[in-house]
């Protein structure tokens, strides 16, 4: 049992004085090492069992705090203090669900997903497709250039001319100029296109496109960033987990990045970075990506 192992592993802590344990507690609390959790838990249990006071302050009365929780805190609209690095990726329970306007959601998604602009680095004699690899820290993710490689053909469902929604028409023209492939995944039928934005720079040889699919307060934001010149770093995405979830759908590698109220999937093909941000569960990404890349 996990608990028994923990107890035997930290039994030496039981021999320490409370003062020594308090010092250890402080250090362990500040540590970002998730392995310290078990030790931290053991220290807390020892101190509670000894009924020692911390800093000569009596612990709160349980009856009082529980009554106050039910009266003052239970129905808060949102937590008072944010907590990064939450492990739960499930959507909030209906008790806590909140309505947000589309524009507030767009702004929040934009802030989450885009922290820096793509930088262009001119490379003389550039002929191969830049090879981008995923890099991430505890709370951010991005694609970074590592070198060049031959472009691999991607089997994908190319958009049929007759079926291209008008919102994508201009994007298609822009991408054709750079000999890039326009991919239009299938989003759920009950989501309708609400808004699209296209930024196209001939001077910088860059195309940035975002389109919003919405159903009431649920949304998908599909973003395409295409650069004809190689870039050092792609968009920077905020996320919660230390690990980015790596998946292969169809024949593309993608990364799912959970965050507080949104989930992002991102992938890189050739010279183009794609992402989809949504407040739906990450499981919705599979069908969407397979619709684009499974042949």
């Amino acid at each position: 049992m996990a608990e028994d192992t923990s107890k035997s592993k930290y039994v030496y802590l039981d021999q320490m004085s409370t003062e020594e344990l308090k010092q250890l507690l402080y250090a362990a609390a500040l540590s970002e090492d998730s392995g310290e959790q078990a030790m931290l838990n053991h220290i807390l249990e020892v101190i509670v069992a000894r009924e020692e006071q911390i800093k000569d302050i009596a612990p709160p009365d349980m009856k009082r705090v529980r009554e106050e929780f039910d009266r003052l805190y239970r129905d808060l609209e949102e937590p008072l203090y944010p907590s990064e690095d939450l492990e739960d990726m499930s959507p909030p329970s209906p008790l806590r669900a909140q309505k947000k306007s589309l524009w507030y959601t767009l702004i929040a998604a934009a802030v989450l997903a885009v922290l820096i602009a793509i930088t262009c680095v001119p490379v003389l004699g550039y002929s191969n497709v830049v090879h981008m690899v995923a890099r991430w820290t505890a709370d951010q993710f991005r694609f970074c250039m590592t070198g060049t490689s031959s472009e691999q053909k991607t089997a994908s469902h190319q958009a049929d001319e007759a079926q291209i929604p008008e919102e994508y028409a201009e994007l298609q023209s822009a991408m054709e100029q750079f000999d890039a492939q326009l991919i239009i995944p299938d989003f759920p039928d009950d989501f309708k296109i609400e808004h699209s934005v296209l930024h196209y720079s001939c001077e910088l040889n860059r195309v940035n496109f975002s389109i919003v699919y919405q159903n009431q307060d649920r949304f998908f934001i599909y973003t395409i960033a295409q650069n004809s010149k190689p870039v050092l770093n792609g968009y920077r995405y905020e996320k919660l987990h230390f690990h980015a979830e790596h998946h292969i759908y169809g024949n593309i590698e993608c990364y799912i990045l959970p965050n507080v109220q949104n989930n992002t999937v991102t992938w890189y093909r050739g010279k183009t970075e794609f992402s989809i941000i949504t407040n739906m569960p990450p499981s919705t990404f599979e069908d969407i990506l397979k619709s684009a890349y499974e042949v």
Partner: protein
Amino acid sequence: MVDCNWTSQDGFFDILYQKQFRKMWLLAITLVEKPELAEEVVQDAFVEVLIHIDYLMTVERPDFWLQKTVRNKALHALRERTRDAKRLIELRADGLVDDLAARQLADVEETDSLSHTKQLIVETLTPSEFHLLRRIAMEGASYRTVSEELGISISACQKKVQRIRKKLKKQLSRNNS
């Protein structure tokens, strides 16, 4: 480990709360040092438990999740208050700020040393706004305590403080540019 003798969300929550609150409070007070703030951080962590209860009922060690949440919230509370305090200190001039917050600004005689500070505070924060932020940032009061003093809900207090922080940040960045 949470006792598995629960059959409902309420039962799960009650057991987790009863068994973990005191431990989490010990953890919180180690970091934030102020008892009422530590208590509020832990209460807030249990608000998160309610939000994520479906997930937590499936994991082996929800107490570890709670531990991490309390730690993060305590550190966030500390960072936020430190930042507020620094911003308030930026408004200081010759140690006059506290006096100005306590009195009616109209009663203060104009002097060269006061006029700039007074103008900045008037443009930035009203006396009541300054008082509220000072209670939170300098004195480490919890939202709950301050909301009781003001006769408003904790949510309303939180929103007030958020607005004040936004206002202050905007004004200070304007001054610094």
